[in-house]
């Protein structure tokens, strides 16, 4: 069965929709009920830019079953120019080459397949900036 969660998260995963706190201006991703900075509860919708910088990263050698074909791969925390931090795979490069400070582009990619005949789940990943 397609997971309802994946479908619900389409605006955030497909379009990088985030929320900007009306109180202090902090951009939170994904959107949540209260601002982690000022506890404010009023937000406006905003879009993250499709780029950022690696804050920290690690190489996954032993992957969960669904991602076994992709191992080893890099997972990083990427900060966008809006100040939002996202956890994402960094692909199209040697995973060992992913370092803090590295400039990345965020791209729309296939994240996982729900089994052999199930739905395809898309979202974003990072690649080294060209």
């Amino acid at each position, binding site marked *: 069965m397609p997971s309802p969660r994946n479908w619900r998260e389409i605006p955030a995963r497909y379009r990088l929709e985030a929320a900007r706190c009306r109180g202090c201006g902090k951009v939170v991703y994904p959107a949540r009920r209260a601002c982690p900075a000022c506890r404010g509860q009023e937000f406006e919708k905003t879009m993250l830019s499709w780029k950022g910088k690696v804050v920290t990263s690690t190489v996954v050698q032993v992957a969960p079953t669904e991602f076994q074909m992709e191992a080893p791969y890099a997972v990083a925390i990427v900060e966008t120019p809006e100040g939002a931090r996202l956890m994402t795979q960094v*692909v*199209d490069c040697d995973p060992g080459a992913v370092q803090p400070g590295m400039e990345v582009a965020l791209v729309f990619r296939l994240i996982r397949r729900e089994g*052999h005949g199930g739905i395809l789940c898309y979202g974003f990943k990072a690649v080294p900036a060209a």
Partner: protein
Amino acid sequence: MAGIVGYGAYIPRNRIKAEEIARQWGKDPETIRRGLLLEEKSVPGLDEDTITISVAAGRSAIARAGIAPAKIGAVYIGSESHPYAVKPSGTALIEALGIAPEVHVADFEFACKAGTEAMFVSLGLVESGRVEYAMGIGADTSQGAPNDALEFSASAGGAAYLFGRENLLAEVLETYSFTTDTPDFWRREGQFYPRHGGRFTGEPAYFKHVESATRAILKKSGFKPADFRYVVFHMPNGKFPLQAARTLGFSKEQMATGWVVNTMGNTYSGSSPTGLAAILDVAAPGDLILITSFGSGAGSDSFVLKATKLLPERRALAPTVRSMLDGPRRYLTYGEYAKFREKIILND
């Protein structure tokens, strides 16, 4: 007048050299290089498919047009490798690019011609006034059977074209389509790899349709081959388009910019549209451009375009084809390639 208001292309960063494929099957790499004029080809990553390629190309097209995505009233993706047999590729794309939900969406198929087909219909809808903007995309992640000649060419990539009536980057001066029922190449439902009809692939298929469509659009538009600055034909390999150009009276110089097949491979529905994108990346205002696609089955679509004054400043807003062909790349061994293309049978 209607025309192109935005365009974009995408080519995956993974590549395999013709030499590496030749070595795997004990073939002579020089025969491929000289015979088919192929050096290397693009390979999709495990997380790349027709949908992700279309989104990347479409995002660039919107960036160059500088319009609000919600104004796009129609989106058509032409491909012979739609990831789902049932469920459109276009629905994921309209969500990803912020076009949904007020939009007409359909997936097109016509072997390698599906991309220009999507462009043809998009243009018509814009010309009729039915929609303000329409996007036509050609993208593929095509497979050639292992140890088949197609394995040297079948690659991955695509291009997106956004049509409108104002702020054109290129005017569409003329269109023409030529189609017959020809059994040159096919894949039955449920078959993994396509088959080709041997002697049907050259003269009665590619050359007949490309040459007939091109001759007809020249006649219809009143232009001569020498009037064009740039020409692009569908590129199933390096040799066919150059041979068709010679027959039709076009020079190597007119062909050079759009002829990207030697390092990109044949991106099927994305082939001639990506060649056209490479041309728009460098064309000067006033330049005349001719594109003729080809799809097995078989048919060709032709367009005569004229670059506008707006083109040079707008093309800087997204990556060029050349920057993707010559930019960051990762070369694969045949083993990695077989894994990426899921040619290896695994247990569930």
